[in-house]
């Protein structure tokens, strides 16, 4: 044994607004009632997961000028749910996506510092940018940031938030009833930030929180995104990929840390992953096939194809061949509010490739969409899935996974009951929480306000 076994990090993403979530299953519950979130969080905590993850949306998705109605629609406010969950859990980290385009640093920093106080040090922030004026129509500042400036804003937003978090050292509140000194220093929380995006000054009015700053997540695999993560993030929320691709990504990102004076273990790589479990591998494969057909109905397949074709395809038969017309080039006007639209930068090439694949394998529209879109990461018996996850982590393709069940809210239960004990038996996953904060669970340093490491510069 040359190398000790790596400890796996596990998190759970509450299933929501995407076609992974099978809302039509008889066991599918509410995606909005608090009882669903509480059940999901308690399961994750019972399984000793590092954290729970909540995505965010700021405008309902539209397709063809109408609100998209085939997936789960609607979700609660991220901060409010996470803070309420702090009341029904004791250790579980609470991670939320919060957009840097349609918020202001002072308010977001207040909310994260408050969440960190109210959860005893369990807050984490997945920093994202918004991509279009469509979302901006719900907000005062509207939608006018060009693509490159959105990223500039995100970086400066995070740097500014760090300045606010660090404006308290942590020893200012003395609250000495005898002497009458509440604050040690009248200037506690004082800050001045002058930048291209934000020119703000004053006093931050939330004292330093248990973690100092929330844990910072960054999603996105572009070169710029990797660099941003290497400089400023504690964890990357990446996409699951094959072992070798995962290893390449892992090496690349971890290799960028040194130039920011950071160690390998200061940035965790946690891909999102789905799973389907069965008593046997064969049963799991059968079940996975069933789930895929529930995730991609004929109507869903046509709507998905419209992302590429950028035109109304409702007249086509989902069980028939791919459309004979070509995609409409240019900005996608048919599907709004979907990140996935951006991945088709060259729709004509995508259409050509899909046609060839469909013809070669004799696939219908629906079969092709199932084949190209559904990514079921782990399929098998609990033993198989535990083994695969462990291999992936030990081979440095990731530091763990953020699991996305396809059933709300009970989809995590079977994983907690069957896979987690096997990982614990192997000695690669905790049997008890060792610390109280999310930084403790993730093995991250507590930030030192006087010598902040790896800060993005503004």
């Amino acid at each position, binding site marked *: 044994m040359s190398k000790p076994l790596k400890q796996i990090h596990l998190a759970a993403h509450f299933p929501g607004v995407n076609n992974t979530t099978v809302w039509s299953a008889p066991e599918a519950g509410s995606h909005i009632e608090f009882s669903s979130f509480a059940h999901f969080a308690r399961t994750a905590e019972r399984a000793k997961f590092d954290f729970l993850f909540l995505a965010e949306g700021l405008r309902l998705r539209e397709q063809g000028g109408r609100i998209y109605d085939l997936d789960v629609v609607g979700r609660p406010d991220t901060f409010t749910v996470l803070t309420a969950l702090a009341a029904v859990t004791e250790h579980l980290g609470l991670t939320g996506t919060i957009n840097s385009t349609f918020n202001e640093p002072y308010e977001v920093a207040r909310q994260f510092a*408050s969440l960190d*106080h109210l959860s005893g040090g369990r807050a984490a922030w997945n920093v994202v940018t918004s991509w279009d004026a469509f979302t901006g129509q719900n907000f005062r500042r509207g939608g006018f940031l060009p693509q490159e400036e959105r990223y500039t804003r995100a970086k400066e937003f995070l740097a500014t938030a760090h300045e606010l978090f660090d404006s308290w050292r942590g020893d200012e509140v003395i*609250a000495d009833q005898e002497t009458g000194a509440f604050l040690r220093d009248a200037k506690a929380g004082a800050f001045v930030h002058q930048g291209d995006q934000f020119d703000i000054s004053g006093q931050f*009015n939330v004292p330093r929180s248990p973690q100092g700053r929330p844990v910072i997540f960054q999603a996105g695999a572009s070169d710029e995104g990797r660099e941003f993560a290497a400089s400023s993030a504690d964890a990357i929320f990446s996409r699951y990929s094959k072992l070798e691709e995962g290893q390449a990504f892992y090496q690349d990102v971890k290799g960028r840390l040194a130039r920011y004076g950071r160690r390998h273990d200061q940035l965790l790589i946690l891909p999102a992953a789905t799973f389907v479990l069965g008593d046997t591998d064969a049963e799991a494969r059968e079940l996975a096939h069933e789930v895929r057909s529930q995730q991609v109905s004929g109507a869903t397949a046509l709507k998905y194809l419209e992302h590429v074709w950028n035109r109304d395809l409702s007249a086509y038969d989902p069980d028939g061949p791919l459309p004979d017309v070509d995609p409409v080039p240019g900005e996608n006007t048919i599907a709004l509010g979907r990140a996935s639209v951006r991945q088709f930068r060259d729709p004509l090439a995508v259409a050509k490739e899909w046609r060839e694949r469909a013809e070669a394998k004799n696939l219908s529209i629906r079969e092709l969409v199932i084949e190209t879109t559904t990514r079921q990461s782990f399929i098998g018996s609990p033993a198989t899935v535990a083994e695969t996850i462990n291999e992936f982590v030990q081979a440095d393709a990731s530091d763990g996974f953020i699991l996305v069940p396809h059933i709300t809210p009970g989809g995590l239960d079977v994983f907690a009951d069957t896979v987690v004990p096997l990982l614990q038996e192997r000695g690669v996953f905790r049997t008890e929480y060792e610390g109280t904060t999310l930084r403790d669970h993730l093995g991250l340093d507590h930030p030192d306000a006087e010598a902040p490491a790896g800060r993005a510069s503004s």
Partner: protein
Amino acid sequence: MSSSLASRSSSPRSSAPLHLAVALDGAGWHPAAWREAVARPRDLFTAGYWADLVAEAERGLLDFVTIEDSLGFQSSHLLEPDGRTDQVRGRLDAVLIAARVAPLTRNIGLVPTVVATHTEPFHISKAIATLDYVSAGRAGLRVQVTRRPNEAAHFGRRTFPRFDLGELHSPPVRELTADLLDEAADYVEVVRRLWDSWEDDAEIRDVATGRFIDRDKLHYIDFEGKHFSVKGPSITPRPPQGQPLVSALAHEEATGAPFRLVARSTDVGYVTPQDIGQARAVVAAVRAEQDAAGRAEEPLHLFGDLVVFLDDTPAAAEGRRDRLDALAGNAYTSDARIFTGTPAQLADLLLELREAGLSGFRLRPAVLGHDLPAITRGLVPELQRRGSFRNSYETDTLRGLLGLARPTNRYAATA
């Protein structure tokens, strides 16, 4: 334009039980409150502190708690920071305090303060709708504006002129205040439309057609106003109460703007009369604005706000106030009447003020650790003995406690 008070659904009959709320802020409303032995100044930034306060209020069967907030440091100065280190400074986000406490309570309403001047109505609409979900129908908000230049500088999107206290009633300052209050009215309008932007039965989960929602039951709100526009619909489905409680504090002012905000936009307005004569005048002024806004028939509670020092004897209460004033270095003053006395005397006063048309009171405990239990264990039993306060929670939603019906959705097609 006129309508008699007696015809209003929310007007208190002399025998109707009072509604009681308590305003939570730091260690209490007196700036030296944190110096008292019962205060827990080191716990102010912990969940346990707030959970204990709200549990105490719920034990007293109170209708709701409000939670103060601001986007800058607390200050003894009306318009700018005071640089003091001998008073409580710093606070947590009020909406999140309410969310943290919600799963630990069952009946009491949770009404955090929301600052309309610098925040987004879209974010607040979904936050309060979500608070309504996590509390199963007990959410509200208290809308507030700020004209402090230092708070504006925390956001950097707008600037407000600095002015002296002497200029408070000058035309430019009145105009600024009126504009901020009108913006707050727009803000509430957006929040309310977003709550209604989903009809109650919009989620259909129709497996046969593969549709999760009936999108004809979701609505764009298409709000266009002076300071912002919002498209909608909300991302969060209509909350359990349909419309969570909206409330605001209003002081008398020559422009009438604060009363107009209460009259146009809220379910509960907090007013600050010093005596029954002022209470009558304030109630009449708000009701006139309500008529002018075309809301004469809609229920609108008016609560009197009072700071309270409660002790077994009037002398003890006075003595405690004097002791706190000495610690603070000056006599405590407030925008609201300051009551010093026994729970029985306070009960007398509340029942007298009720005659002016107030249906309830929001009490601001001078020292939370002392005066909150004095309310729940002294005042409440006193009012119960007089048949003027509930003996148990009659319902588990905030609107229900206040006798407010669940509103129909403005966008729902009328058959």
